[in-house]
């Protein structure tokens, strides 16, 4: 019996090749999209699975409240380490302090490279199960040992042995390569960890040594591994008040500590006002839903084409029933056919996925590999086939098997209005989803455009930054400024303690006239040199930038407009801020200028209140260079490098373009938009494939009618309209459904961004016109073909 089913299914597929091709290809496309999204979702959900201890690893986070606004982050003070080691020994198996990821200059003989990595305590390597290829896992116990990743070692030493070699770091420290570890693969945190240095060495820096009892200095990270048998919630609850109870000065900010588990780092990292509010998990849901919808579209194609063809199969159903087939047997037969089609589509989908996995990875910034050897994957594929076949095959099977044999065999069977209604509903569903995707994508794109076009407040073009990675740069700023300017490649140069596109430090503790009682300010804090305003071409709202002509500028400050509003200052230029207390020595800081707001952090959020102080202590982290626009970029860079190398022959010449750094702020949204564009395009293609197939069946069904109308004098245009109208009406209804739904969803989405676009009516008009245009185009081919056909021939076919 089964063989019989398979036989007839195959012969049916071969007999109607065009139909089969549309059906299998459409389904394969939908399945491929779902498969790729599935792989992407799996990759996201399995993030950090390289770390065997993942369920027991966590990072210490803290929430602090400033003026009723709670901020949550991983930065913690140094004394916390000692408090946890001393009082909570039983809760943790391991603890490790860590620096932030830092780029450092490495020199070995002639080779100079820049690598990213961390300074950590020796336990760290055990916590993350670092796979040691050579050397000692506990190497970081020695304060002059360095561990390198396999790739970093290869880059520095080529094929030669790296172990035991002495390398110079930032021109200061001489470190012995004591271990080589396997690179941490993509899809994991710490994947860019190219080196590990001992915390003990890092902690010898003056500012870190002095931070040993500073509970208010949140400049470090702390990772923990839970002790066996200790659950995360109880350990987290136990440490909540440690900081608050340890230091009266920080207590007013109500610091709440908690353990943020590794399993949530990647997808649930957003906190709003102290409450965890999701994160990338939203994208996972978004694409998961898109994947499900695209699959649904493909399934609808299958259902529509199968039921549209029903008139061709009614005879078969009638005969089978007459001969003795039960309804169940027929359902089984039609489901077998669905399975066959879905299996073929799935094979094609796997092939499509294989071919397009690489471009997809590029688009999604992933390194997903095809999981050939993963048994779970193949089980999921089987379930996927079964699910798709059941979803797409059930309705046609029930529909076809319910035909009454006598009507069929006597030729009185007619597909009535009721029979086409579900098909119409399916087409409307399909186009509602497609139109909603079009509208959603257009809104995402317009939001990104809107933010990209936001005035930055300074000029990003022709601006580069050179990171100050080595101590040998310190104090050379003025000299290098003169040299660079003399070369003609650079118009101006200034230093800053944070990069132009980030804020690395925040401060409080200022006083000013009219400051409300108990106001806990929180200001973005950057130290800058003379000519910073000129170099970045920042517009001033009032006053001026730091100037060499005013020696008192070393105790002056500049605010941005947001800070003036935040602090409630009137005509601030010339007025004073205070810092410190009467007992500890009060510093008076004159406000010499107010900058117009410049976008430094998120381009989607309001500019944060910021204070700029003169850098009198060589705290520069970056040299900012305004290049001469009269020369080509290549000439400028070559000149700058030449001048740089003349003075620092051993140092690595590394620079970033500020406009590119700024553009990175849109990377995540750009990626979502690109993926959404591709998926929307595919959804449209799939829907159109179905529409094309459906239109051809309708044209075929109405061949006689068209012939008669033509004989009676209908023009090609009349017939074209006649055949297209029905579909246009359906798509129009779909638009009426899609518009309010997508407006509602996208309106909520843009609200996420404080700085957001207004959803324009034109987006809906454009999407509507597009959907109707595509429909007309798809349907017209079949409609015109039927309309142009010779009526004599079409009448004879009946």
């Amino acid at each position, binding site marked *: *019996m089964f063989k*019989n089913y398979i*036989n*007839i299914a195959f*012969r*049916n597929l071969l*007999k109607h090749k065009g139909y089969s091709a549309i059906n299998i290809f459409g389904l394969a496309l939908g399945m491929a999209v779902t498969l790729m999204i599935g792989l992407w979702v799996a990759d996201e959900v399995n993030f950090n699975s390289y770390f065997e201890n993942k369920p027991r690893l966590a990072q210490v986070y803290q929430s602090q409240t400033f003026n009723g606004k709670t901020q949550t982050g991983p930065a913690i003070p140094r004394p916390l380490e000692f408090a946890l080691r001393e009082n909570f020994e039983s809760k943790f198996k391991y603890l490790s302090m860590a620096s932030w990821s830092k780029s450092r200059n490495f020199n070995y003989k002639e080779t100079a490279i820049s690598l990213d990595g961390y300074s950590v305590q020796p336990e760290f390597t055990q916590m993350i199960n670092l796979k040691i290829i050579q050397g000692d896992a506990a190497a970081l116990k020695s304060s002059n040992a360095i561990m390198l990743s396999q790739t970093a070692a290869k880059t520095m030493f080529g094929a030669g042995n790296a172990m035991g070699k002495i390398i110079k770091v930032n021109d200061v420290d001489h470190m012995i390569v004591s271990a080589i570890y396997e690179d941490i693969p993509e899809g994991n945190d710490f994947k860019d960890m190219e080196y590990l240095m001992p915390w003990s060495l890092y902690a010898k820096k003056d500012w870190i040594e002095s931070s040993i009892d500073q509970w208010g200095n949140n400049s470090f990270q702390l990772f923990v591994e839970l002790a066996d048998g200790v659950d995360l919630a109880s350990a987290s609850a136990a440490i909540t008040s440690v900081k608050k109870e340890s230091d009266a000065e920080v207590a007013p900010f109500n610091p709440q500590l908690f353990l943020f588990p590794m399993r949530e780092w990647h997808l649930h990292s957003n906190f709003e006002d102290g409450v965890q509010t999701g994160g990338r998990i939203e994208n996972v849901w978004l694409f998961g839903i898109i994947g499900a919808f695209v699959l649904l579209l493909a399934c609808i194609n299958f259902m529509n084409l199968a039921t549209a063809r029903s008139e061709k199969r009614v*005879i*078969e159903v*009638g*005969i*089978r*029933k*007459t*001969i*003795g*087939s*039960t*309804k169940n*047997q027929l359902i089984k037969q039609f489901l077998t056919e669905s399975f066959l089609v879905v299996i073929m589509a799935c094979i094609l989908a796997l092939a499509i996925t294989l071919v397009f996995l690489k471009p997809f990875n590029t688009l999604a910034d992933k390194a997903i590999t095809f999981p050939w050897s993963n048994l779970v994957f193949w089980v999921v594929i089987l379930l996927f086939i079964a699910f798709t076949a059941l979803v797409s095959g059930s309705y046609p099977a029930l529909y076809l098997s319910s035909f009454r*044999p*006598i009507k069929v*065999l*006597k030729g009185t069977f007619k597909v009535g209005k009721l029979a086409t209604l579900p098909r119409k509903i399916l087409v409307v569903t399909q186009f509602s989803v497609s139109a909603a995707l079009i509208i959603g994508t257009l809104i995402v794109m317009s939001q990104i455009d809107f933010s990209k076009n936001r005035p930055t407040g300074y000029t990003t073009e022709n601006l580069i930054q050179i990171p100050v990675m080595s101590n040998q740069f310190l104090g050379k700023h003025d000299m290098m400024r003169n040299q660079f300017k003399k070369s003609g490649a650079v118009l101006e140069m200034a230093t800053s303690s944070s990069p132009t596109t980030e804020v690395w430090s925040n401060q409080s503790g200022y006083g000013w006239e009219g400051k409300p009682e108990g106001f806990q300010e929180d200001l973005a804090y950057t130290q800058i040199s003379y000519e910073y305003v000129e170099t970045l071409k920042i517009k001033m709202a009032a006053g001026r930038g730091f100037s060499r002509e005013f020696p008192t500028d070393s105790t002056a400050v500049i605010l941005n407009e947001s800070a003036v509003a935040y602090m409630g200052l009137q005509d601030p230029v010339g007025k004073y801020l205070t810092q410190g207390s009467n007992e500890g020595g009060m510093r008076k800081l004159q406000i010499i200028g107010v900058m117009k707001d410049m976008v430094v952090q998120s381009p989607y959020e309001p500019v944060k209140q910021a204070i700029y102080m003169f850098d009198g202590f060589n705290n520069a982290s970056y040299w900012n260079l305004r290049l001469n626009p009269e020369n080509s970029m290549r000439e400028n860079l070559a000149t700058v490098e030449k001048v740089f190398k003349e003075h620092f022959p051993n140092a690595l010449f590394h620079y970033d373009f500020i406009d590119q750094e700024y553009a990175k702020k849109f990377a995540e949204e750009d990626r979502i938009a690109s993926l959404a564009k591709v998926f929307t395009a595919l959804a449209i293609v799939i829907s159109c494939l179905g529409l094309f197939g459906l239109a051809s069946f309708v044209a075929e069904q109405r061949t006689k009618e068209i012939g008669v109308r033509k004989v009676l004098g209908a023009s090609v245009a009349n017939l074209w309209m006649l055949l297209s109208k029905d579909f246009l009406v359906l798509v129009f209804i779909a638009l009426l459904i899609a518009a309010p739904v997508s407006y509602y969803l996208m309106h909520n989405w843009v609200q996420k961004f404080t700085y957001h676009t207004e959803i324009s009516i034109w987006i809906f008009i454009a999407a509507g016109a597009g959907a109707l245009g595509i429909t007309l185009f798809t349907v017209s081919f079949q409609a015109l073909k039927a309309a142009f056909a010779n009526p004599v021939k079409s009448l004879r076919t009946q």
Partner: protein
Amino acid sequence: MIKITDLEKYYATEEVRTIALNKLSFQVQEGEFVAVMGPSGCGKSTLLNILGLLDDPDGGSFIFNGIEVAGFNERKRADLRKHNIGFVFQSFNLIDELTVFENVELPLIYTGVKPAERKKRVDEVLEKMQIMHRRKHFPQQLSGGQQQRVAVARAVVNNPKLILADEPTGNLDSSNGNEVMDLLTELNEAGTTIIMVTHSEHDAKYSHRIIRMLDGQKVTENILSEYKSKTLEV
């Protein structure tokens, strides 16, 4: 074998109710060959559908092999049908996607016959119908007469007690038509009961008894001499 009493069937649209069978009663004995004749719309086909358990009467009684089957649900009807009744249609109604062999094999599949037994029985019946050489062909590759022979083969492969034929020669020329009628006669002589709806007086003469219908009722019944003599012999 068949006893129908006061059988009724209506077809209703929104405005009109058409009576297709109006208190029709008759009996058919096992081994009989009955022809049902009448003008178009007189209810012949409705009768055949009810007799074939493809349709349900709206009133009256239908006893098949001593069992009241009026009111059976579709599943029970399908079960009774596949074991007892074979159909021959005017338009052959072969499945285009199946070969001759597979078309004939189908009823055996639905009654759960094992593959080896199926092959044996299909081969036997194809041999008997003289279309063995065409067993691997598809229906559209055969002539009308050959297609109807396949349809007859399919109708008898399960050894049904009853064959219902709906204008079996309607789409055939006279020589092919005669061949099919000879085939049916042979089957009848071998013991199968046959009820045939036809417009053709020529074909009707192959039967033992002709029931003539008009407006859903039986008007006359002619018992042909051959059958009378045959029953007398018995």
